[in-house]
């Protein structure tokens, strides 16, 4: 069963086309890298799937359902910015997630917080941007969702915590789920990817398995990306 299906999906901002007639289907059980230079449409695609933007035209299905409130319970979304209420403490936001998402695993979240040295009664207002990003990732990966949308999950995190986060991503998703990761740090993420999608100017330039890329091109995804998008 496909987790995500985009049919002729387009999104315009005024006269600018951020995505043009995109056709894409993602199966379950994969970690997919959504890669492309700045302004290629990665965040726009993720926001459309999360329901934060309305498509100009085309169809978007998550587990066979059109994007709606119903698909919100199937999707676990990590935006590229901080969305936390500053007045809350860590435990407040954990309880918030626990009350709204039936699939939220409180024990898993508290274990991950302990591993990253984040205390339950820490105030979000006093946290650094990087710590907030780690906390958001913990919240998102502590759900048993069908589709995880991670927009720049390690962009603001120190290199020492990246490996922990990547191993968390691998260990957190179930066989029937798919993870879509948008990032610029291809070298760091490449080792966990099953499939990559190269986006350029709102159009898919490449959609392939990582193993196929290595066999056919004889190079890593990072090297191929630099070759394809050379300035």
């Amino acid at each position, binding site marked *: 069963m496909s987790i995500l299906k985009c049919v002729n999906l387009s999104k315009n901002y005024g006269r600018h086309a951020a995505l043009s007639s995109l056709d894409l289907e993602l199966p379950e059980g994969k970690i997919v890298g959504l890669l492309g230079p700045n302004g290629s449409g990665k965040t726009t695609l993720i926001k459309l799937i999360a329901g*934060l*933007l*309305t498509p100009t035209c085309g169809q978007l299905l998550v587990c066979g359902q059109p994007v709606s*409130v*119903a698909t*919100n319970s199937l999707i676990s979304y990590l935006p590229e910015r*901080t*969305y936390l*209420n500053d007045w809350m403490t860590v435990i407040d936001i954990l309880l918030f997630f626990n009350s*709204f998402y039936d699939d939220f695993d409180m024990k898993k979240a508290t274990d991950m917080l302990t591993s990253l040295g984040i205390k339950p009664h820490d105030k979000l207002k006093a946290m650094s941007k990087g710590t907030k990003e780690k906390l958001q990732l913990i919240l998102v990966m502590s759900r048993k969702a069908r589709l995880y949308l991670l927009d720049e999950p390690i962009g603001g995190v120190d290199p020492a915590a990246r490996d922990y986060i990547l191993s968390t991503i691998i260990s957190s998703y179930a066989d029937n789920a798919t993870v879509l990761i948008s990032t610029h740090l291809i070298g760091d993420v490449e080792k966990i990817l099953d499939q990559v999608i190269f986006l350029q100017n709102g159009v898919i330039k490449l959609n392939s398995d990582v193993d196929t890329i290595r066999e056919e091109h004889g190079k890593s995804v990072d090297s191929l990306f630099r070759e394809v998008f050379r300035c």
Partner: protein
Amino acid sequence: MLAKLLKYEFKSIGRLFLPLYGLSILLAIANRFTAYNPDFEYEIPEFVLMGTFITLLMGLAIVTFIQCVLRFKRNLLGDEGYLMMTLPVSRFDLIFSKLIAAVVWTVIGGCVGLTSLFILTPYDSMVSTFHILSDIFRYGGFNGAMFFVYMILIGILGVAAVYTPVYTALSLGHISNKNKMLASFGWYFINSIAVNILSSGLVLTIEKVQLWDMLRIDISGTMVSHMIFIGIIIILLIYNAAHLLITNYVLKNKLNLE
């Protein structure tokens, strides 16, 4: 889900408002002590206390309105919207929770303001005010309890009517790709003009068709009062419902969180 949302709404704004309410009551008590106490002869502290109290009361009304509007904008259309709009909660519940919280905090703010004023009012003036009010009810043949029910309903719906067009304007303004705040102001004025045209049209129609003559009913003064109150309630209900529906449609079908 609405109950869960409301819990967080009250928690979020309450931490700001509750200390202000407490301060308002304390200042009223302090003013009561200084203003009517002949033994207290220090004019400058008395003046400062009264000035602070009046400023706080005015500030309370402004802060309540601004904070409730900002809560809608930031929590649904700002960065926090990335969390709220991806919750498995209907857009209507999100909007309605904001409205309920805004109305409740505004009404509580109003009650705190009135209580503070009562604390300051001399006992004799309070008694004579109640006498005047009861005379009005008697003269109008009005049941006091019924009057209060009408006033509470009109008060709640009237407060909601302050917020619902602002929510609609903010939502419509957010569709715009740039200058969202400017677009929101534009939508607010367009909405106000449309409401004025509609209400003028309604009044003119009632006059033109001579509604009372058409009904051909010999109506008593009390009945007219009831009809006026019920009419106001119905109009406010329609006004708020229409704005809520437009806001819900925009956030459901045209959301543009860039």
